[in-house]
Structure formats: structure tokens, C-alpha cells
């Protein structure tokens, strides 16, 4: 069936008719060019509403053991309407309502990969994928400490990606989580791990190279050392330097962007980091914007979370070491605009987004739920697009944070095109999703349609219509179809299994289980992990290379 979206205000800088009122044609789940003498079977008049590709969140914690534990930890705190970590159906519905059609879980441990995929499979309406966490395993650090050769390292990384059916590789506090298990409480970029002798710089340098050489679409996704520590901007820039010019993605950059000057010994490092990104085309980042209100922070970085436990609000916390791979730390927190540090964090995220010139290399995230829930994205978009609104909000934060912020002098307002890039086209590009994030002919017809409201927050809070693969799944906030087939994106990598002998021995010595236990086969992913939700519609599994 040929469907025409007529009278559409096309918002897609990659589309030849960007900014124009025009028609889009959809057939077999994708956009198609017009054909002479062929009339559409169905025509929808959009009355010049804004039409954008389905949005993509490249960093949102929506699946896996840590997310579930945070539900458990907070179950008695929140009434259902107060939650910030929702059950899977609501997560899918809330994202869809805002026009998002794909989300990526950024912290999947090998041992918990099945759990992650199972939860993602139960999150309807969203294509998904996950990044496997590496860089704190005993076996990997030991190998790096013994200067494992590049080919073997690539094989270890490739095996991890394939075994966990991952989309990309993430490193969290390189070596630092493992160091904490050996009671080494800090690990700066050039400091040697007390057990393995390796430094965070070594870990980042070797893994960026391995990821690059394997041809993974997404560069190494880096949660840098010293998260949340005043003055960490220095180690953040050192971490980026460690990539030696290779592609590298700094995640939730706001949390790694603090100077040690200013009130209370803590200030913004946004200008330094933005300058670095503006002059280093190999670097991209997502922001991890803090939004005021109650949330719960969840991270594999137990070293950082252990340090934060005394700030928990309400006063409860959970720290867990996990399978010689990483950890799991949960601390609830209430970001308050009267609090200096929280206000500073709020300004830094916005400063980064407004000072980095290339919208293709900066991504709008709250590191859900760490900086705030993803449902605050419309508010964040308004802060970026509306200077007067931003200034009015600036007046409400801690006065010292406001006084020192660069935001007072930044006039930039994001355009609709830039919003389309940072939430659609750029995430698709950096994840290698060539047929997503766009309205061009041949692209998957994931569509979000918005009616202009009196402000941008209201406009983006709820799409009037969301389509998944050309099928309308939500209209005016009402879920029409929850069982639409969704895609699990994962990377395709090749490696020589013969190179894994030593690796296999090391892993099995640590975990006391066969290496094969960790492998998720293609059949398992498509038939067992997803099958009972869609018995008659086998989901697509798509390579992300």
C-alpha cells in the first residue's frame, strides 16, 4: 500500500526538501520516491505539521540488572505516577509519545547480556541495541598489562561484541572499577593499576584502536575517569588525548567537565571541553544534562557511586561488584535548583550543547535516569531553542552558579534543523544506522509528527502521530499498536576463534563457567528472547556495521 503524507512540513537537513511543505510517500515500511501515474492508496493531510524522522536516544539506561534493581530499590518511594524508572511497557510508550523510535542501552555486562536483551525485547515500540561494557575485566586488564598484541585484543573485543549481541563497546572508568576491587580508591589517567600495572590511558588507547580496527560503526563509548570529581576536566581531556586521534565518544560529558576553581572549589569546564571538541573532529559526546527533580543514579562505576553514597536522597544505596567485569551502584538523588553543585551541573550541560559548534557531534541526553528522566527532553529542547526561556530559568538557580555561568552571554538558539540533527540524523550516523534518522527515500519510515504549540516544550512533549515502519502506532498520545515488530541492532564483527585460547582460560578461571555459557546465539536472540511476545511476527535483527 502506498501511503502519502501530504502537506508535511519536512524537518530533516539530510532531505532535499528540508524546510518545505511537501509530500512524503511510504510503501513497505520505507520512504519511496513518487512514481509517474501512480496514485497513493491512502492520503493523510498533515496540515503543515512538523514531520521528522523517529528520534534516537543513543544513551539511556532502560534495560538490564541495574535498571531492575533500581526499580526494586525505589519501589516503595514512588507511586506509579512519580516513577522515573518505569516498567518496560511504559518506557516504550513514553518514548514513543515523544516521537522516539529507537533507544540504546549503553551498559550491558557480558554476564547480564541476556537479561538486558530480555528487557529490551519487552520494551515495545522501540528498536534497540546495547553497548557491551569492557575495560574492567580481570582477563582484559591482565592481557593489557602483559601488552597483548593487537590481533589478540581485537579478537577478545570482537568475541565480546558477538557473544553479547552488542552494538558497540563502552568503557566505564577504565580500569578504575577493577582497581576499587583491589582497594585502590583512585585511578588517574596515568596511574598504574595496583594489580595489573595497566593505566586508564593504556585501556582507552588500546580499546579505541581495537574498536576502530574492527570497523565498528560507533567509536569507543567512554565514561571517563574521575566522574563527578571537582577538577576532572583535566583527566577528561587526557582521556580524549589517549585516543591518539582515533574516533572516540565521551559519554555524559557534563559529569566529567568540572574545573576546581570557582565557588566551593568547583566550576565549569565546559569552555575547555567545547574548545577541545571544536578542534578535534575525532571526538563526539553526549551531554548527560541534569534536570531538577527526583531521580536515581545507576552506574557500573561502583568506585564513584561508593563515594556518592552519603549524598543519597532518600538515604538508601546499593553497591555491588559483578563477575570480575564491572559493578553496579545505585544512589537516589534529588537535583535541586537551590543547590550550588546541582545548579552548576545544570549550566554545564547547556553550555556544552551551546558551545560545541557541530550538532553532528553533540547529542541530547540526560543519561536517563542519572541526570533526570528522559521525559524531560521536551523541556531540554526548549532550553536550547528559546534563549529568553533559558535566561528566565537561569534566574531560578543558585545565584553563584548563575553568576559564573557562560549561559548569560550565549545567544545561540538551536534551530529545528539542529534539533533534527542532534536527536535523529546524528545518532543514526554515529551508530551506523544508514536507513534511520532520516526521511529520505529508502529510509525506514519511522516518523514523528508534531503540531506547533505556543512553545517548543509543548510541541515536543507529544507527537500527534508516530509511525514505526510506516505503521501508525500512536496517535495523540494513545497507543494504537504495541506489538509492532522492532529491531535489535547489533554489530557484525569477524575474528579468528583460534586466537581466543588464552582468553578462554582466563575467563573460565575467573567465572568458573564455560565461555560458551556467555554466548547468545542468533537463534536465541530471535526465537527465545523475543519469540513469545510476537509468536507470528519474528523480529528483524539488523547489523549495525
Amino acid at each position, binding site marked *: 500500500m502506498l501511503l502519502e503524507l501530504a502537506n508535511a512540513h519536512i524537518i530533516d537537513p539530510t532531505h532535499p526538501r528540508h524546510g518545505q511543505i511537501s509530500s512524503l510517500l511510504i510503501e513497505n515500511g520505507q520512504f519511496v520516491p513518487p512514481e509517474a501515474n501512480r496514485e497513493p492508496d491512502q492520503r493523510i493531510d498533515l496540515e503543515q505539521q512538523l514531520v521528522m524522522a523517529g528520534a534516537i536516544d543513543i544513551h539511556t539506561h532502560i534495560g538490564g540488572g541495574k535498571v531492575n534493581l533500581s526499580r526494586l530499590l525505589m519501589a516503595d518511594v514512588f507511586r506509579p505516577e512519580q516513577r*522515573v524508572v518505569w516498567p518496560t511497557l511504559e518506557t516504550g510508550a513514553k518514548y514513543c509519545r515523544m516521537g522516539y523510535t529507537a533507544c540504546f542501552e549503553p551498559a550491558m555486562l557480558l554476564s547480564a547480556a541476556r537479561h538486558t536483551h530480555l528487557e529490551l525485547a519487552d520494551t515495545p515500540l522501540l528498536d534497540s541495541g546495547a553497548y557491551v561494557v569492557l575495560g574492567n575485566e580481570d582477563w582484559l586488564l591482565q592481557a593489557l598489562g602483559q601488552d597483548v598484541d593487537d590481533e589478540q585484543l581485537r579478537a577478545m573485543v570482537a568475541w565480546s561484541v558477538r557473544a553479547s549481541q552488542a552494538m558497540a563497546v563502552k568503557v566505564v572508568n577504565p580500569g578504575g572499577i577493577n582497581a576499587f576491587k*583491589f*582497594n585502590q580508591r583512585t585511578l588517574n589517567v596515568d596511574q598504574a593499576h595496583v594489580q595489573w600495572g595497566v593505566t586508564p590511558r593504556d585501556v582507552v588507547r588500546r580499546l579505541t584502536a581495537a574498536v576502530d580496527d574492527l570497523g565498528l560503526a560507533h567509536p569507543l563509548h567512554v565514561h571517563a575517569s574521575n566522574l563527578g570529581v571537582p577538577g576532572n576536566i583535566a583527566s577528561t581531556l587526557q582521556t580524549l588525548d589517549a585516543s591518539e586521534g582515533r574516533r572516540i565518544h565521551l559519554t555524559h560529558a557534563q559529569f566529567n567537565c568540572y574545573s576546581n576553581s570557582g565557588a566551593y572549589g568547583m566550576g565549569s569546564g565546559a569552555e575547555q571541553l567545547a574548545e577541545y571538541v571544536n578542534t578535534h573532529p575525532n571526538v563526539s559526546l553526549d551531554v548527560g544534562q541534569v534536570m531538577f*527533580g527526583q531521580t536515581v543514579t545507576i552506574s557500573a562505576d561502583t568506585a564513584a557511586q561508593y563515594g556518592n553514597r552519603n549524598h543519597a536522597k532518600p538515604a538508601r544505596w546499593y553497591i555491588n561488584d559483578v563477575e*570480575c567485569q564491572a559493578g553496579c551502584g545505585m544512589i537516589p538523588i534529588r537535583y535541586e535548583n537551590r543547590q550550588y553543585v546541582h545548579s552548576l551541573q545544570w549550566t554545564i550541560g547547556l553550555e556544552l550543547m551551546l558551545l560545541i559548534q557541530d550538532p553532528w557531534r553533540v547529542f541530547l541526553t540526560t543519561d536517563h535516569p542519572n541526570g533526570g528522566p528522559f521525559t524531560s527532553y521536551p523541556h531540554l529542547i526548549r532550553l536550547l531553542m528559546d534563549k529568553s526561556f533559558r535566561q528566565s530559568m537561569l534566574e531560578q538557580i543558585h545565584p553563584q552558579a548563575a553568576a559564573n555561568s557562560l549561559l548569560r552571554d550565549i545567544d545561540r538558539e538551536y534551530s529545528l534543523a539542529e534539533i533534527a540533527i542532534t536527536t535523529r540524523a546524528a545518532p543514526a550516523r554515529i551508530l551506523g544506522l544508514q536507513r534511520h534518522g532520516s526521511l529520505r527515500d529508502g529510509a525506514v519510515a519511522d516518523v514523528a509528527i508534531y503540531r506547533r504549540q505556543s512553545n517548543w516544550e509543548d510541541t515536543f512533549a507529544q507527537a500527534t502521530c508516530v509511525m514505526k515502519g510506516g505503521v501508525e502506532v500512536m496517535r495523540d498520545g494513545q497507543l494504537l499498536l504495541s506489538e509492532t515488530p522492532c529491531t535489535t541492532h547489533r554489530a557484525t564483527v569477524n575474528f579468528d576463534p583460534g586466537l581466543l585460547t588464552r582468553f578462554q582460560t582466563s575467563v573460565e578461571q575467573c567465572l568458573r563457567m*564455560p565461555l560458551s555459557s556467555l554466548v547468545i546465539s542468533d537463534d*536465541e536472540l530471535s526465537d527465545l528472547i523475543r519469540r513469545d511476545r510476537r509468536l507470528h511476527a519474528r523480529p528483524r535483527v539488523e547489523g549495525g556495521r
Partner: protein
Amino acid sequence: MFRKPPLTESCRIELKTQLARAHLGQSSFSGYDSWNVSTTPTSKPAPLNAFANQHCSLCGLMCAGAQLHDSNAAFGGTWDCCPRRQTWLAQYASRCSSVLNSRTSFGHSFTDRRTAEVQAIRDFVMGHQRVLWWIDGADVACTRAIAEITQRSHGTIHVGQATGATLVKRTMINEGWLGTTLGEVSGHADLVITLGDCILSEAPLLPARFLSRPDGERPLEWWHVSANHIENSNFSPTTPLPAQSLVWPRAQWLQRLTALQLELQFPANNGPDSQTTGQESLLAEALRRSRYAVWIWDNSEFTNSIDELVISRLLGIARQRTETARCALLNLESQVGQLTAEETLLWLTGCSGTATWNGAEWTTPPRYAAYSLDDWQTEFEAIALVRTVPSVAPLPQLRAELIVATAAELAEKATDARQSSGYSIVVQPTGYAAAGHLQRGDRGASLLVGAPPSRLDREETPADWSAGCELFAEVAGALPSRALATPDATRQGAG
């Protein structure tokens, strides 16, 4: 009346062989009419470790059936040496036979026809207003399907009565938590203290798999604290034994742990008035020496309010030690089917333990937190009891109108339920003749059990005994659709 034949050693081998064949899809095991307990000696028993991804679900360790990599063979990893598994295998066989031979004599009406089973469950759901799905053990897919049925029929799901886990949950919420997993125990711990009389019988291979290290590696010191002496005769000669075994009367555990914590906090306090004994002092010294200490216990052994204080004290010790070193807690859940169902329910509904679908969202009515078995039975018009994951624990003493369980569980339950008028449906046990995902007892890993790669396609699954997930998925499909969930559009959360 069926009389259980004596189980000779050769019989046990035959049973193992049948199970192994069932794993491989070679046997007639798929239909229980073919089950018989052979006493014929077999000369060449098939190996149990026939393919990868086989894991035992009878305790929190979830041991893999396949051998580890050659160079790690010393760590074990096979099932053969597990007394718990051997016992269960023997019981399973005899109970299956019992079901076969007695099925017409029970009050329940058994059926092995899938369509009739689906119809029976559908009728059960449609025929009652207030239905409680009591999940005593299920894999992820099974729990998903039951949640869908519950949502379509506006019912309630309750996962077991895991009081041990509840105590841990409460302590975590009130005081925080410093936890760890089994891999960390084998990889990083230098001092492990197992606590309780059950832990070594609930997880028999714990010492062999996780508390021993090859020569030349960092040493691991193992202490065991229990109310009774360890009977060395219960262990095979190759099983490692604790370096120190302390016997503390059960009633004194809280007092002793309190003294231990004080000893750690105030070492100078070890004078004539000190509450500590020589044992606590030695243990305190070992803790002080350690770089990464772990306390391990079995959830099922800590269930009352005093036990909650014991757990709190362990957390206090862990917190105190972690100021300068590392110390962590590991509460092992032996009912992996229960843990898995709880986890799945949590992500599907956001509710812990109990979830009611009220037509718009999942909630946990607060009053359920204190319900006893009797309360559940009076609250609901009908109860469906589900256990599809093999376990050595008995089923709860619950009057259920519908029981969906493996043959072994049904045989056991049937003896209590002769007067009951309800349905009993046999399903294939997850991990043996049906594939499924289970959470390991330490929450450290999620594993696929019972799934040879060649048997993943639905079409190849034997049909006589349904896999629980397939049965329930069909039931969900057979129920009329109700309005889809549409969470309140106005909610924006924090921020």
C-alpha cells in the same frame, strides 16, 4: 497402587542416560507414557555433558553440564559429583512414574493434549472473577506469558514467599548494601566466610567451584560458621574443606556477630570485659588481614526478625571493613525459578513480588505485604499454582484450583490434593526438556538452560508435555483482548 521400585545404581545410571538423551532430543522422553524405570543395567551411559548451555537449576550456582576448558578442568563444572542433583534425579524418576501410574486415581483430571490444556486454563481464567497466579518458579518466558494472561483478565500475580530475599531487600532499603557475586568470590576474594547450616547442602559444589584456587594463584582463606559441626563424611574426598570451622549456637549468632563488629570497630576493647571469645578474635583478625572478604549465606535460612538483625549486623561489618579494605555480602537464592520470576515481574510491572492489573496499570496493594497463605486463599476466588523450574523445595501448602507443574511436583502435590477438584497440567521442566532463561542465585548472571542450539525452533519442540511458556502464550492468545495500556499522558516525571 503404584509401588516405587528400588533404585539401584544401574537404575540411576539409566535415568541419567534418559535425561541426557532427552537433552539431545533423541529419546522418547518427550511423552510421559514412555517413562519407565528400567532396572536393566546399561553398559554405556551417555555423558551428561553432551552440549554447551546446559545448566542445572537445582541450586543457586546453576552449574554448567559442559566441561570447562581443558586447562580449567580442576574447577569441576560437571554435575556428576553433586549429591543434590543425584538425589533429585532419583526422586524425579520415581515421581514421574508415580504420576503415570496414579493419574486416574487423583482428584485432578490430567490431560496431555495441548488444546485441552489451553482450553482448561482459559476456562479457569474466564470462569473466575478474582484469580491469583501464584508463581513458585518459572523462567522468563513463562512469567511473561502469565503476566499477559493476568493483564488480559485483570488478575494478580504473586511470586512465591521468599522471606529470606525479603529480609535482604528490607535491609538494603533501610541501610544500604555492599554486595558481590560468585565470580568475584572466585576471582577476587581472599577471605570467604560461609554462614549457616544450609549453605553447603543447598549449594554442594560451592567449595569446589568457587572456594578453591589452583596452586600458584592468590590464596583464598575459607571460614565456615554454623550451628552444627560439619560432617566431613558428607563431602567427597576431593571437596575442599574450610580452613576454620566455627560452631556458634544458632541463638547466639546475633550476639556473636555484634561482638565481632565491636571487635573490628574497637580493637582496643579486647580486655577482660570484652564480649568477644577467642573465635571472634581470630575471625576479626582474619577480617583485618583480608583485602576482599565475602560473607555468603543461603536466603532460605534467614527468615525471621532476628535473622534480619543478623543480616543488618553483617552489613555493618561489611561497611566498617570497606572503610579501609573491601568486604561484601552474597545472599545466595537457591530457588532460581522464583528469583527469575521476581526479576521478570519487576521489569514487566515495576512491582516487586506481587502485581495487580487494575485495568490501567500494575500496582501492589500494600496489604498484600503481610498476607499469610490463608489470607491469599480467602482473598481470591481461585488460585493457579505454577512451577515449571525443577526444584528440590516442596510446593507451598496452598489449595489451588489449577496446578501447572512438572511431573515431579505434581506427584508430590497430588498426595495432598486427592480431595481437591481442580486441574493439574504437566509441563516439561525448564532446563531438561524445555529451554528457558533463568537468573543465577547471586543475580550475577542470566543463563539459557536446556536448549541445544538445534532445538531452538518452535516447530521442533516435542508437543506432548508443553513447555510452560508455550502453553501460557497460547492461552494468552486465546483470551479476548482488552484495551491496551495507555499510561497517563500527562505524567512527566521529575525534572
